[in-house]
């Protein structure tokens, strides 16, 4: 397992390096520049000074070399769309909200999705199965920008203790988590159902049933463990994606998270911010995948022998 971790970490560095090099040149290839995003044009002599301040007046290759050097020292640079703020600061400030919403979303997904999948599998081809899978299908299909406002109208406007939007009270985490979690819950239900069905048809389950083991231990101890593998594979990247990719949910519910910066960095041509977020997201994704691999090893002894 140790060897796996080391090789994955090395891979992650290589991937992230490739990723940000690509981003570095790709964002600069888009027409427009970071200093021309106001509708009022900036006088030429002012633009020259600001370009100098951000080092944007240097040749591309010099900028790239300088950037790599700074990144290696842990400095992701200065944001141009939020002057005076470093990219490190923006990530650090917006990560907690994103983490909380991400954890909330995944909790909703697990609490809804896995039981639904298990029940559907146990009552295969019954009305319970069909209805829960139909609900799951709806959950997959409803986009967050529809579900979010609906929850605001149906839940928040009708209750006193849930606000429509904002990030002030503990209850403010509920609606964003629900909005984000429902889609993932639906996937998870389908994956769990498939996994359950596959394991339930295995010989060892039939043996256990024949030996008179009660149903609950069969499900929990013998079936779920194997059936969870596809679900776990899905959960890792889903968590990473929720943390940095929840732009819509963040703007609907006014959550001060990271996702919105991703989109804003592209539209405002904030090179440093976009690159910083790509690096962060790259490592997050690699980390989540590594955790998935470890979890799979723990769940499936056969994989352990293979490594």
């Amino acid at each position, binding site marked *: 397992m140790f060897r796996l971790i080391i090789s994955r970490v090395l891979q992650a560095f290589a991937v992230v390096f490739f990723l940000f090099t690509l981003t570095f040149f790709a964002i600069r290839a*888009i*027409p*427009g*520049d970071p200093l*021309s*995003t*106001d*509708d*009022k*044009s*900036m*006088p*030429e*002599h*002012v633009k020259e*000074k*600001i370009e100098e*301040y951000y080092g944007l*007046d*240097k*040749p591309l290759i*010099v900028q790239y070399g300088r950037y790599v050097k700074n990144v290696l020292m842990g400095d992701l640079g*200065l944001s141009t*769309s*939020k*002057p*005076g*703020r470093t990219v490190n600061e*923006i990530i650090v*400030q*917006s990560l907690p909200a994103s983490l909380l919403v991400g954890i909330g979303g995944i909790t909703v997904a697990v*609490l809804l999705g*896995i*039981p639904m999948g298990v029940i559907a599998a146990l009552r295969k081809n019954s009305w319970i199965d069909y209805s829960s899978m139909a609900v799951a299908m709806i959950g997959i299909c409803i986009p967050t920008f529809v579900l979010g*406002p609906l929850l*605001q*109208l149906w839940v*928040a*406007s009708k209750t006193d*203790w849930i*606000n*429509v*939007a*904002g990030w002030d*009270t*503990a*209850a403010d985490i509920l609606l964003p988590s629900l909005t984000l979690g429902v889609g993932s819950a639906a996937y998870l239900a389908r994956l769990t159902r498939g996994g359950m069905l596959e394991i339930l048809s295995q010989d060892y389950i039939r043996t256990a049933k024949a030996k008179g083991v009660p149903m*609950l231990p069969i*499900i*929990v101890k013998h079936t*779920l463990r194997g059936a969870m593998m596809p679900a776990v594979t899905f959960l890792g990247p889903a968590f990473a994606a929720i943390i940095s990719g929840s732009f819509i949910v963040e*703007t*609907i*519910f*006014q959550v*001060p998270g990271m996702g*919105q910066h991703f989109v804003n960095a592209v*539209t*405002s*041509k904030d090179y440093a911010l976009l690159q910083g977020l790509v690096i962060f997201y790259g490592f997050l994704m690699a980390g989540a995948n590594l955790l998935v691999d470890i979890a799979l090893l723990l769940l499936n002894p056969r994989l352990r022998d293979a490594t």
Partner: protein
Amino acid sequence: MTATLKVFRQRPPAMRSITFTLLLLSGLLTLTSCQDETPIERANREGILLIGNGDEPKGIDPHLVSGVIEGNIIRAIFEGLCVDHPEKNAECLPGVAESWESNEDFTQWTFNLRTNALWSDGVPITAEDFIFSYHRILSPNLGAKYAEMLYYLSNAKEYNQDHKGYIFFKADPKSPLDWQLIKDCNFTGNDKIDISSFKDTAKNDFSSLSSEQKQLYVNHKGLNRISLKQLKTIQDGSIKFDWPTSVTAAEREVIIARLMQHAEAGSPDLWDLAHVGVTAKTPLTLVINLRGPIPFLPEITKHYTWFPVPKHTILKFGTIDTPNTGWTRVGNIVSNGAFVLNSWRFNHHIEALKNPNYWDSSTVKLNGIRYLPVKNAYTEARMFYDSQLHKTYTLPPEMIIHSRKVRPEALRQEPYVGVYFLRLNTTRKPLENQKVRLALSAAIDRRLIIDNLLQGGQTPAHGLVPQTEEYTTPKVIHFDATEAQKLMAEAGFPNGEGFTTDLKILTTPKETSIRMAEALQAMWKQHLGINVRIEQREWGTFLTAQQELDYDIAVGGWIGDFLDPTTFLDMWSKGNGNNNTGWSSTEFEEKLNLAEQNADPSERLEILKEAEAIILNERPILPLYWYTTSYLLHPSVKGWNPLLLDNHPFKFVELESN
């Protein structure tokens, strides 16, 4: 204890975590359900105004920002010489200045500062703070985007643009040369000389250029902007500089020597030599000298670029011209407004509380203001309905209709000095033809667009400059389909025959812009029989396309910075970065110049009206409508009156409980 544990153990792990989460959730709910008052009720009790502010500000340094969102915060925590009146437009109340007067021709103004004006840390505000502030915003190295707001001061433009030639030989009384003789020298550069192929090399390694390239580069940059090394190449004759023939060899030598002397000294600041028009007669008397008569100067000083910044704080965090030093952060900032910055959570809120050191703090009724950067306008409206906000930043058209039904008492729609228009690229066929432009204009039914698409109660523009009490805009634009067809026929396209099918309206991906373009498309098809296409571009490329004149027709808008027609007219002069139509007119610019030199306020406005008539007659832009602001305002907010500039002075705002 053990019994409970056993029960838990018998449950499947998934069940256990469900139980745990349910317990946690119910705990949470009991905690939060104690909240028995809405955020608005609580804010009314505490005297805190909750307002939606559109987005996270780019900053709150009055010298480094240029937006409305930033202005809303800056106006609360800083104060200029004069203050906005809570209900009257174009009226100035005393701010840091107790009184002011001008000389007869409005070229010199004297502001008498009050003795009790203090910074929030208790330090008295003096004229020196203002001089420092104007010095700072105009410093060439600060990179202040909006420094041009101070170009009314004499020599301010030249100092800000680092026009060394002008400063050494015109502004400096000890100048060895007569400026009139040498003013045609290429000091400021020539952008027409194309150096794009070796621009990077020239910056990094000038010596590796061929002598022909060196010559192009130096002439492109101009004497003011080249390095010491490059000056030397001109001095020793290795590069031929394009001097005007009128300038003698001896004068050339003096010019080069003076510029080299400055560069060799490490390019020190030229503020003292430049004699920018701001001085202190006494510690509390600020004298402002202008480049021409400006009868409306007090009006301009209400703009945040003219606000003072604390010298003693700024110098603690850097030099006068270091940008983004962190002096505006909570804990560091010192300001002089009715409120002081209390907390700032990035992308979450900014809170300003009442400033106990403010000179007029007995007038201030609010205990604080909380700005929420709500980007999603629909969310913002829902937050208002849910009693989370006193005021929304904006209101989208669909929500205007909805609010009219459910919260009519909260809906506000007020005139706002701004104009929405189409820019036409007059360098392209067939838009270079004035008749075509007039035909396009006459075929637009502006009333129809406003009533069916915008819903905001906007006014159809009958001219360019929004109508105010002082200024009567010429009435020349109106919808007339027959007239439009006639003009089109005169231009050689009867019933649209022979007209290009390739004309495109450039828009941003914004929903209202696209729908606007679709409406224009339909009207031109119906009334003129022509087909235009719509091209959507992402914001950055939308702007670039216009700057490079790589478009046909583009949607655009402009909001006035102060109440004077020049804020809408100056931009259409030649070479202005906001013109982008390829149109220019010497006659128009002459009128602007005449107005700039005229000291009689009503005569001046007449001349500006003539200038506006010229641009309207040529129609390089098609004004569509004058703005309104639509927003929701909670009935408990008092003292919030319609203002054309939408700059509400927070010191007069009150909250009424219940």
